[in-house]
């Protein structure tokens, strides 16, 4: 049974904000990984299995991402939390595909919001060049705190917006069996994203061989289940 009361909503917004900040600013402790963020949201909603299943699907997409500083990458954390709200308590077989689509769109917007945040911080530095040139430690701390505060605001808005959208879209979520096909497509895309990322990271040589050995073992385990 899914609970979505004011207390739960506040906890979800707080969790989403923490998860969003964790991606880059603080503390980068894996909280922003979709599987972790989704499971947390599922626990808050009283449906941890839905959280894990949606989180795991998005985790496969996230495995394709190398979060290197200057590169542009999606922000999956708040997106997964909104997706769990959208689909919790519903039959996952028919909703997972549409929920994944919803989360991917939000993650894309989240990635764009990171670019905006970085430009805003850049402008803040331009405004404080004199203090930086003088080695003023108060100016350095001011920029650092403002940067962190801006990321908190970004993550809060992203989570709150995502949750609002999820609550509005929940009644329109399809429930017919035909949508298992959409789920199958989403699962295929997720696995392909993770596989493409793994192959790209492996490059060649030993890592590619270990990946192939792992895939062989995984196929065997999947066949025996």
């Amino acid at each position, binding site marked *: 049974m899914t609970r979505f009361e004011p207390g739960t909503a506040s906890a979800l917004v707080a969790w989403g904000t923490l998860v969003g900040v964790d991606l880059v600013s603080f503390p980068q402790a894996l909280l922003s990984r979709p599987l972790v963020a989704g499971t947390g949201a599922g626990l808050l909603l009283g449906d941890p299995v839905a959280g*894990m299943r949606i989180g795991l699907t998005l985790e496969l*997409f996230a495995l394709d991402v190398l979060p290197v500083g200057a590169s542009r990458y999606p922000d999956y954390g708040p997106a997964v939390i909104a997706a769990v709200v959208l689909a919790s308590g519903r039959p996952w077989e028919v909703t997972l595909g549409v929920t994944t689509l919803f989360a991917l769109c939000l*993650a894309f917007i989240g990635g764009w919001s990171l670019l905006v945040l970085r430009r805003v911080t850049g402008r803040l530095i331009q405004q404080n060049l004199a203090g930086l040139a003088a*080695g003023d430690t108060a100016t350095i701390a001011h920029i650092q705190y403002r940067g962190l505060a801006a990321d908190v605001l970004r993550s809060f808005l992203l989570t709150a917006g995502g949750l609002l959208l999820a609550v509005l879209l929940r009644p329109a979520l399809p429930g017919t069996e035909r949508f298992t096909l959409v789920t*199958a497509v989403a699962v295929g895309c997720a696995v*392909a994203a993770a596989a493409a990322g793994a192959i790209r990271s492996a490059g060649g040589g030993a890592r590619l061989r270990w990946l192939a050995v792992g*895939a062989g073992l995984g196929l065997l385990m999947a066949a025996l289940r």
Partner: protein
Amino acid sequence: MKDGFLRALARLFMVQGSWNYERMTGVGMGYAAEPLLEDLKSVDPARHAEASVRSAEYFNSHPYLAGLALGALARAEYDQVPAPQVARLRAALTSPLGALGDQFFWVGLMPATMALAIICVVGGAGVEAIVALVVAYNLARIATGVWALRTGLDSGTRVGHAIAESWLPREAPRAGLAAALCVGIALPIAMRWLLPTERAVDLWVATASVLVALLVSWKAGPKGSSLRFSIWAILLAVVFVWGFR
């Protein structure tokens, strides 16, 4: 400088708090350097002011290994190393720390941890397994952070040699191998677990999606975005299913 160790270590957890395209993690490094440079203020105020300016200049590396550079640069300031040499050290550490950190954490330990979490979830282990893996990862990360800052402070300008002699260049490729194995195992069982029904059509649709997406990814090269392709593919599937209502 010893009193500032813990404060600098804590501040390193938010070294990317003001990340931007101009100085990247430079300001975060300046913020983390402040507790380490505090003692210099009473000993040599002029040097302290110059060191504070330098500490917040352009810098970029892997955030978990930034302590190596932070410690080494702070040590260099106390050792009265000439300013141009400090600047060269700062510039020289950027690429190796980024590459080693990416190799060990982003391409190694992190995907290995998350793939293990996937394997545990599919195996029915539940929330406890995820929490345990996240805690284990963070213990490794904190231990690395403490080691990095300590090594940097002890080595100063000889930090390059200290890194080369350390466990990091040895273990980074091994972490990558572990990640490759774990991700390889995780993908097929995750796909099996996520398939909506036992019907063959779902398996065929999912497998076809994997192959098409991989082909598109391969054709598109490094510029290809799995995110964009997936949005379009799932949207197409929704329209298709809706059309047959």
